[in-house]
């Protein structure tokens, strides 16, 4: 047919790697450059060590036995514990009933996250796309709420919950966390949606979609990175909260995880650091998993190629 059929020759060369790549051997730097590079990596090592050391210590302590904790650090019980014992972990679950607070935390954090993601998506989309007068002011107002110091509102909220007989209940926490998760999530999603060109939705509209279909099939899939980011932030905020939990919860079985940890470290004679640290490790796992899982979703290049 015509010479135009098929991709242009130049384009295929772009996609295929050259047949035989010339490999230039990398030479080690010498002299002053070598010294500089060694120093650089030493500094990097130092920075990494300093950042990770606290967590390493927690991990290490969580693997001690009670006796080793009582013994203190020193001698055989140095940077590495003499034995690896999972006593602390099993104790946490069997005697301290750590599972319940974990579940409470999960309920509250997931609840807050889901609500945040749904509401912030809609709000962010509206603020980004619809011609609302004073949209900037509205967003500013929302953000201000998120910057409010936590300790300042704990008191009034306590009185409010008392009036409503909602103290010592985990469910109001979901709503309270929204005060802090919604502003950030909305702001994030608004910026995200604003960056998605209108052309995309318009193309969907012309192709035959209703506004809702365009949103569902085109905008949201492209906005997934933003949605996941907002979700993660909301989850972390809710999961790690201590102030509200300690102020509003009383019965141990209603505690969230950060709150319950405080309790089972104490006894009259000894502070069971190993149990506390084991609990900390357990608490951190969901967050770590979440971030790992979601990192793959937060792919910046998702919109690459859609335009031009």
């Amino acid at each position, binding site marked *: 047919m015509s010479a135009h059929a098929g991709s242009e020759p130049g384009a295929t060369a772009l996609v295929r790697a050259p047949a035989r790549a010339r490999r230039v051997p990398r030479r080690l730097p010498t002299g002053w450059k070598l010294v500089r590079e060694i120093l650089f990596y030493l500094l990097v090592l130092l920075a990494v060590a300093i950042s990770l050391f606290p967590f390493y210590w927690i991990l290490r302590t969580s693997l001690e036995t009670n006796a080793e904790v009582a013994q203190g650090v020193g001698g055989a019980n140095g940077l590495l514990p003499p034995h690896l014992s999972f006593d602390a972990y099993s104790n946490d679950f069997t005697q301290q009933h750590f599972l319940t607070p974990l579940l409470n935390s999960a309920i509250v954090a997931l609840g807050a996250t889901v609500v945040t993601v749904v509401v912030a998506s809609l709000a962010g989309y509206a603020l980004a796309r619809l011609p609302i007068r004073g949209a900037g002011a509205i967003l500013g107002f929302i953000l201000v709420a998120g910057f409010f110091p936590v300790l300042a509102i704990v008191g009034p909220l306590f009185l409010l919950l008392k009036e409503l007989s909602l103290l010592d209940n985990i469910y109001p926490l979901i709503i309270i966390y929204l005060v802090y998760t919604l502003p950030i999530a909305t702001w994030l999603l608004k910026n995200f949606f604003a960056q998605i060109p209108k052309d995309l939705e318009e193309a969907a509209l012309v192709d035959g*979609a209703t506004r809702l279909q365009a949103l569902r099939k085109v905008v949201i899939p492209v906005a997934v990175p933003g949605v996941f980011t907002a979700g993660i932030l909301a989850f972390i905020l809710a999961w790690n909260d201590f102030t509200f939990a300690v102020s509003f919860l009383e019965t141990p079985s209603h505690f969230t995880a950060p709150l319950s940890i405080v309790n089972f470290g104490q006894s009259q004679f000894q502070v069971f650091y190993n149990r506390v640290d084991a609990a900390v490790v357990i608490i951190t796992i969901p967050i770590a998993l979440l971030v790992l899982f979601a990192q793959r979703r937060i792919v910046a290049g998702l919109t690459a190629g859609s335009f031009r």
Partner: protein
Amino acid sequence: MATIEIEHVTKIYPNGSEAVSDLSLDVADGEFMVLVGPSGCGKTTTLRMVAGLEDISEGAVRVGERVVNDLSPRDRDMAMVFQNYALYPHMTVAENIGFALKLRKLPKEEIREKVEEAARILGLSEHLRRKPGQLSGGQRQRVAMGRAIVREPAVFLMDEPLSNLDAKLRVQMRAEISRIQRRLGVATLYVTHDQIEAMTMGDRVAVLSAGTLQQCDAPQALYDAPANLFVAAFIGSPAMNLYQAALDPDGGGVRVGKQMLELPARQRDDRALAPFRGEDVVVGIRPEDLSDATLLTGATSERQHLVGTVELVEALGSEKLVHFRLEAEHVRGLQSVVAGHDDAEGLEAGEISAAANVNGVARVEPASRLRAGEQARFVVATDRLHLFDPTSGNALSGPVARIEQAS
């Protein structure tokens, strides 16, 4: 298959600015109509009103016999190719092309067939499984076209689809698009700022400026018989040389600066020029109507010559573009288009400014020995002079008798 009728359409934005003023245009079934003009002239706004992406303030748009003013884009049976292609980045090429069909809930088999057919026409068959991010610019543009043609719509709308491609690809795709449109025979409204695209692709071209239709005609008619100064300066590259001039009291010649050019009998007797005898006019000379006097052998009179100083000579191989300065005033009241613009991106619609140091351009034979700094003597094809009213900008008289346009 349908026609498009734009009737007295006006678009006024909430802040009061009028983007399109009383535009009336018809596109016949199967016709390729190009909307061309500088940035801000209202051509994209018009296209979007036809598509349903912008509200129509006044007037009506008809597709076929239906008034579509209040129909949402999905009910208008139109397909649109966007300037930025707007391909769905999370879908493969096949899914992109088939999206509209999927929305219409066609059976999977049928969708697959149609997508493969469209891909075949556009040479995309081997890329169906890829995502837009993995394609080159030209390929993405073709996917955008594929998305449009697979729907077999009543109307094609195209918003500067070639402006993001490099020059060579643009020339290639221009021919592709024309070929496909002719094959499918669908009425097409094509927006561009590039007058070369307009001239080469359009069955008819509508020139817009500041929201108003200047002229709508076949490309050659626009070139030979521009209706006003704007069209005259816009169409043609290099642009027409426009100068302030004065018509002789007897109407037999026109004075440009201190030089006199004679007018043929046809124009001397032209009734349209009668009121302007002894008055100011604007004279337009196309670059190709100027020749290097030293190369011509025939006898020509002084009244067919223009003398100027050469500023610059651009040798293109097939011809030479000689930029020259005359002792005359370039036309006032129209921003200087005449700096060799190929497209209108440098123009601001309706902007008025003095054109001080603008050179005229002449297209001469490659054998010409003119050099910068020299005095040049040009022979003017005086039977091809364009004359304009300096106040209204309207054309008074030109080389070709103008056909009354039915827009």
